């Protein structure tokens, strides 16, 4: 906001922040300031990660977690995106959908967990449902907001060029929303990972959340760390992929 940075400097500082944290960690564990049972040394975690990367069991945890997030999130998006667009475009839809979503989204997902388990059991669907429910209500409201913020003048221009309502909807409104929509999707996907861990910590016998929980019981702090790292990395990778997709899909935003 107050100072602009060249991309190179930005990248430099970003990497620096990671390096700083890692260095602090190394120094701490070298000097034995903190009991390794609470904070294992980086090399210990690197070793642990190496063994885990070769362990098919660990990969199946990663796999099942990614699967749950993907299905839960897609389920939410498949319903929330159209509903949000309609709510943003039509007053009556807005009245039907928005206040209700505003109400429900204030209920913390963990509070809904018992109810979901009663309804959906403790099988796969329960976890997927937690993620879907957690993402859905937020997403509807955010997509509705994206839709509302589309310039009226684009639509008016389309109408004076002879567009029918249907044409204005699909040829102007939808393309106009898309860039914001992908950003919204990216944000909500980040939250979906949170709901996943909530679901897996409480009721699961597989997945990264479960692996972390189990390791904690045996005070395997190193395994807890690798689990957390894995979730963080998976989140970061999907996030960056979506940013890249955004850049590739909407070149016109940069004027290229």
């Amino acid at each position: 906001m107050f100072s602009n940075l060249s991309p190179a400097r930005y990248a430099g500082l970003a990497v620096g922040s990671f390096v700083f944290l890692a260095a602090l960690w190394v120094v701490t564990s070298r000097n034995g300031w903190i009991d390794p049972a609470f904070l294992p040394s980086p090399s210990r975690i690197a070793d642990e990660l190496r063994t885990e990367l070769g362990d098919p069991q660990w990969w199946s945890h990663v796999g099942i977690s990614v699967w749950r997030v993907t299905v839960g999130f897609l389920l939410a998006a498949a319903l929330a995106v159209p509903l949000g667009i309609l709510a943003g475009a039509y007053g009556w839809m807005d009245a039907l959908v928005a206040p209700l979503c505003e109400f429900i989204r204030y209920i913390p997902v963990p509070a809904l967990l018992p109810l979901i388990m009663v309804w959906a059991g403790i099988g796969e669907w329960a976890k997927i449902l937690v993620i879907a429910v957690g993402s859905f209500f937020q997403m509807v409201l955010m997509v509705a907001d994206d839709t509302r913020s589309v310039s009226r003048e684009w639509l008016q221009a389309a109408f004076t060029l002879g567009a029918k309502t249907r044409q204005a909807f699909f040829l102007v409104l939808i393309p106009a929303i898309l860039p914001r929509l992908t950003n919204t999707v990216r944000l909500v996907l980040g939250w979906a990972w949170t709901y996943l861990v909530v679901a897996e910590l409480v009721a699961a016998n597989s997945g990264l959340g479960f692996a972390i929980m189990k390791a904690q019981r045996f005070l395997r702090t190193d395994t807890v760390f690798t689990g957390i790292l894995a979730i963080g990395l998976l989140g970061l990778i999907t996030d960056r992929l979506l940013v890249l997709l955004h850049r590739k899909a909407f070149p016109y935003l940069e004027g290229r």
Partner: protein
Amino acid sequence: MTPVFQRPVEKAIPGEDRQPEPGIRMPRISVEGVSKIYRSKKWEFTALDRIDLTVEEGEFVSLLGPSGSGKSTLLRLIAGLEPPTEGRIRVDGRTVKGPGADRGMVFQRYTLFPWLTVEQNIAFGLRLRGESRAKRREVVEHYLRKIGLEAFRSAYPKALSGGMQQRVAIARALANRPSVLLMDEPFGALDPITKGQMQEMLVQLWEQEGTTVIFVTHDVEEAIFLSQRIVIMAANPGRIIAEVRVPFGRSRGYDLRDTEAFLHLKRQIVRRLEPVMAEK
């Protein structure tokens, strides 16, 4: 140069001063006793008070007035973007009920679709109508040449300057061959040099294409330079207070502004406007 496609009635003969013959030719646009009143529980605002106005085919008319005089509102009513509270507006004899391709509009703010290239923007109206690819190409070529942006055909609007964007917006509206081109202070946000160039380009386009134009502005010089007739409006309530015929011919160059006749007309109009500006 002949336009790529033309409605049969629009046989424009360059240089011909087309005087309407009352009773024989139907005016292109007739605004009949139109009022626009915005109401809420607490207040009422008369944006337009019983407006009568006719515009003939091929005419270039400016609506000139201070802000609040309802000139933009009148344009939006003609475009069909808002309904009048009273009265009716007819275009080619048909009562306006909503926006349509027969009334192209150029807005003050840049309204090109940013996800479409220059070409695609110009072709948008034709695409809506389901014109063939070949036809679209032909029309787009024609207007790209007219606005001098052939080199930017594949560029996205973001890469264009404000003046270039407005040129494309004009081409986009004209590509539809509308009965009338409605322009809402289209050059208001441009720097003076660019504005002058755009005005000259517009005069040329109008001359060559024979389109009827209604142009909203608060710039006296702009109104004189462009139009054949200036409708002067005042605020509170929005109304027409005078009409001025501009005696200059169709081909106008930039130097026209320095002539005695131009300055004389400008003084006349400013004198007419001054008292209603003070009202504000």
